[in-house]
Each structure stands twice: as structure tokens, then as C-alpha cells.
């Protein structure tokens, strides 16, 4: 292609591209978009679970949930920092989120209707995220890969916590078990959609694979997730809402039903149950905080001026 030779050589040797290395502009732009979208997803993703912090049914669960949502803010910080190594600015990326020019994962446009949704998000949504993200720990761009190593470690912790919430519910009272099953019924298909459209409908995947940003196809990752999750569902004593799930001895994989992407495309277009709510919550927090950020900047400037004066005097 048109890529610089040293960049091509680096990728060919499975080396890591670092911020000061020469890189194609399209590679840089693709990474900025992907990392920003990932960062935005972490901070928008605070909301559905944050919705249950005040109502968590035990103090232990409340503490775990607060720590988890806090981790998501932390992931956002790592990821914005990784994006900034590519010459962009966190404030600009946030503006693009707030104005709708950059996206976040559509999974966060669903509401958390019951406490069991907190479990289902941990188990299924974080589970799917891990399957998506583990290969990114070997992404060709160094700062992103290193951020993902930290993120994945914490995500797998979250995934276990989600599993444990559902396990407790599933082995609790009939009402608790029903709550768990209902949450899984609502979360299963959206979580399969987190891997993106089918491979034959995913135009940018080939270039991302060539650049070592993407390592596996959408469908491969989806299959990996299903294979990982079906036995866990059995362990939980919960059913997945897909009658076509069965072990295929020949393929060595679980078969599963066809994902209906119509809904996903509606949600992406902005027509999910919570799109407007999520974005306006985020924008409101940002606008309400403007005076605070302004004050912090003004104070820092004053302090710098005072130091200069002290030095000059």
C-alpha cells in the first residue's frame, strides 16, 4: 500500500508502533476514532450501572458497584490518555461525544430496569467486552495495547462479579431467580451485537486487520463469546433466550440463532430506549462542571504567575 516502509516493516515483525514512530495518517485517524469511541463507551457506561448505586440491596454490593463504576471512569482516563499520544486533546474528544459526532457503544442505550441488570451487564456485557478487548492487548499501537492490558485485568474481575450477582439471584428466592432470568433475556441479544455486524457486512475490518489493530473477525469473536458463555449460563442455572443454541460436535463450537441487527441499527441511529437520556446526562454533567474547570484553570494560572513573580523578585 501507500504506507511508509518502516511502518510496514514494524508491523511485519509484529513490533509495536509508538507515538514518535512514523505512521500513516489513516492509521492514526482510525486509531483515534476507535480509542475515543472506546473511552466514550467507558464513561457513558458508568450511567446504567450508576443507576443502581443508591439502591444496591446490600452494603457489600453497593461497595462493589461503586468501585466498578469508578473503574470505568479510570478506564476512560487511560484511554483518553492513549488517544492523546496520537496528537488529539481529551477536551476535543469530549466535545465530539457531546455533539454526537463520535459514538459510544450502543449497549449502553438500554436501561437497567432491575438490580439483576447489574449482574447481566457484568456477566454478558463485560464478558463480551473482554472477548473484544483481549486481542487489543496485542494491538500494533503500543499505548493502546498497554492501556488494554490494564483494562482487561479489571474487566475480568468485573465479569466475575456480575456472574456472582446472577448466581446469588439464581439460587435465591423465586422472585430473585425470575429477576435474573428476565435480565439475561433482555441482555443476551444486545450483547451479541457488541461484536458488530457480520463479517460480510463489515467494510473496515480488513484494513484494521492489516494494520494489526484488529486481530479477529467480528463473527469469530462472537463465536468465541458464545462458546465461553453457554457453559457459564448452565452453571448459573439460567437459560439463554435462543432455542437454536446447541453444541455442534463437528464444528467444535456452539451453534446459535441469527442475530437480528435491525434493532442494533435503530439504536445506532439514535433510536434506542436511552440514547437521548445517556447523552443529555453526560452533557449536563459537563456543562454543570464548566465553572469548576474554569476556576481550576484560573487558579493554576494565578499560581504560575505567583511563582514567576517570586522568581523574578
Amino acid at each position, binding site marked *: 500500500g501507500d504506507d511508509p516502509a518502516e511502518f510496514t516493516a514494524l508491523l511485519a515483525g509484529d513490533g509495536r508502533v509508538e507515538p514518535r514512530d512514523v505512521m500513516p495518517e489513516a492509521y492514526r485517524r482510525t486509531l483515534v476514532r476507535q480509542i475515543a469511541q472506546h473511552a466514550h463507551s467507558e464513561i457513558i457506561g458508568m450511567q446504567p450501572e450508576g443507576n443502581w448505586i443508591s439502591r444496591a440491596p446490600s452494603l457489600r454490593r453497593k461497595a462493589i458497584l461503586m468501585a466498578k463504576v469508578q473503574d470505568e471512569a479510570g478506564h476512560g482516563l487511560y484511554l483518553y490518555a492513549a488517544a492523546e499520544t496520537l496528537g488529539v486533546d481529551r477536551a476535543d474528544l469530549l466535545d465530539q461525544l457531546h455533539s454526537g459526532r463520535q459514538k459510544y457503544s450502543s449497549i449502553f442505550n438500554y436501561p437497567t430496569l432491575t438490580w439483576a441488570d447489574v449482574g447481566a451487564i457484568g456477566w454478558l456485557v463485560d464478558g463480551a467486552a473482554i472477548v473484544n478487548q483481549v486481542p487489543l492487548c496485542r494491538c500494533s499501537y503500543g499505548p493502546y495495547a498497554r492501556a488494554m492490558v490494564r483494562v482487561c485485568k479489571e474487566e475480568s474481575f468485573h465479569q466475575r462479579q456480575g456472574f456472582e450477582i446472577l448466581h446469588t439471584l439464581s439460587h435465591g428466592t423465586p422472585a430473585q431467580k425470575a429477576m435474573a432470568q428476565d435480565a439475561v433475556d433482555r441482555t443476551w441479544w444486545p450483547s451479541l451485537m457488541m461484536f458488530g455486524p457480520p463479517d460480510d457486512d463489515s467494510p473496515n475490518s480488513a484494513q484494521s486487520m492489516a494494520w494489526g489493530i484488529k486481530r479477529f473477525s467480528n463473527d469469530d469473536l462472537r463465536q468465541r463469546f458464545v462458546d465461553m458463555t453457554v457453559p457459564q449460563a448452565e452453571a448459573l442455572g439460567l437459560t439463554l433466550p435462543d432455542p437454536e443454541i446447541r453444541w455442534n460436535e463437528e464444528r467444535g463450537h456452539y451453534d446459535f440463532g441469527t442475530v437480528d441487527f435491525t434493532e442494533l441499527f435503530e439504536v445506532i441511529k439514535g433510536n434506542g430506549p436511552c440514547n437521548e437520556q445517556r447523552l443529555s446526562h453526560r452533557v449536563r454533567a459537563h456543562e454543570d462542571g464548566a465553572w469548576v474547570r474554569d476556576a481550576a484553570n484560573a*487558579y493554576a494560572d494565578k499560581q504560575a504567575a505567583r511563582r514567576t513573580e517570586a522568581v523574578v523578585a
Partner: protein
Amino acid sequence: MRGDDRLFGYVLGLADDALVSAQRMGWWISRAPQLEEDVALANIGLDQLGQARTLLAYAGQVEGNGRGEDELAYFRDERDFRNVWLVERAQTDFGVAMARLLLFSTWQHELYAALATSTDATLSGVAGKAVKEVAYHVDHASRWVVRLGDGTDESHARMQDALDAEWPYLAELFAPVDADLVAAGVAVDPPHLHSTVLTRVEDVLAEATLVVPQVRDAIGGGRQGRHTEQMGYLLAEMQHLARSHPEASW
């Protein structure tokens, strides 16, 4: 009143302050002015929640009726909560949150520092750990109060307003507690903390170019279970799920 009843009441007061403060702090997560602050406020809330859990568990032991942290948090009615008014009122302004945290954590810090030498081994242990956490809360609140007080004209005015709004609730923190517990070296008598807390807060205000508010003290009464009308809504939200499934484990 039996000694255990007094101790139960004293420990509940400390526990409920921390619990209710953590509950209000949790609201900020996803609503802070910047991402670093979401992390910081979650940290502070988690510290307070941790203190509350240990103290509630201890209160349950002292009471001796088999109530654990969750029974005490979720199945007590409003009139049985013992927290001060300072922590229970809803707040959605960052300046108010920082003014309140400055007052509360400065008081908590002096209290825990003194309680670290309590003759009650559990309380001294809790306090010894908590005092380090709370030192960070004081530092965090102080930095923000200074930045906002000495930031822009707008932030100065808002921070002074916030401070004026929270200041009436400071006095309740210094109400005396059971004299026998104090005499036994178990409890710290809050009036003794008054001048130190005030000096520390005033130092921060001076650096922040803010003035000490001249406002009337609120009546208070949280230690006797007389709360503001906002407390009931806080508890309804916090307890609804647990009370909807009284027989469940989570």
C-alpha cells in the same frame, strides 16, 4: 440505660454519618465536573462506606440482637437513624459538595485521630485506619475550596454561597455525647474538637480568600433521630429493593 445501649447509640451515630454521606457521594459518580473527580469522589464515598460497614457491624455486635450491617442499614426506620443533618441533605452543586466535605471530613479527621486512642479496642482500630483515609478527604476538599474560592469571580461567589449554605450544619457535629462513655475513655467528646476543627477550616478559608459565614446554626437533632424531611426520601430510595425482598440474600 445499659452501658451497651449507650455504646450502641454512639457507634450508630458515627456509622450513620459515614453511611449517609457515602449514599449522597454516590450520586456524583458520572456527574462530576471532570473524570478525575468521578474517580476521586467514588474513592471518598467508598472509604466512607467502608467505615460505615465496619461500624455498623460493630454496633450490631454491641447490641447483641444478631443484627448485621445490612439489617441496620436497610431495615431501620428514619427515626432510628442517628446521623447529623450535615450529611443527609441532597446536594447537586459541586461547591456545596466540597464545602460540606471540608466541614465533615475535617471534623471526622479530628474525631478519628482522638478516637484512635479509645479504650474500646474496636473503635480505636477502626479510627486508626479511618484517620488516614479521611486525611485524604480533607486534603481533597481543601484543595477544591481553595481553587474555587481563589479561582474566577464566579467560582468565588459560588463557593462563598456554598459555604454559607453548609455552615449552619457545622454546630451539630459538636453536640456532647454520653458523658459516661467519654469518662470511660471510650468516646470522644465532640465539644473538645471544636476549636481545632474551626482553626483548620478557617486556615483553608483564608487561603481560599473566603470569609467565615455569619449565619445562624440549624437546629439539628439527627443524633436523637429527628431528621430533615429529605431523609425519608433518601431512605426510601436506599432501602426499597432490600425491603421488597425481606427474606432474600444478595
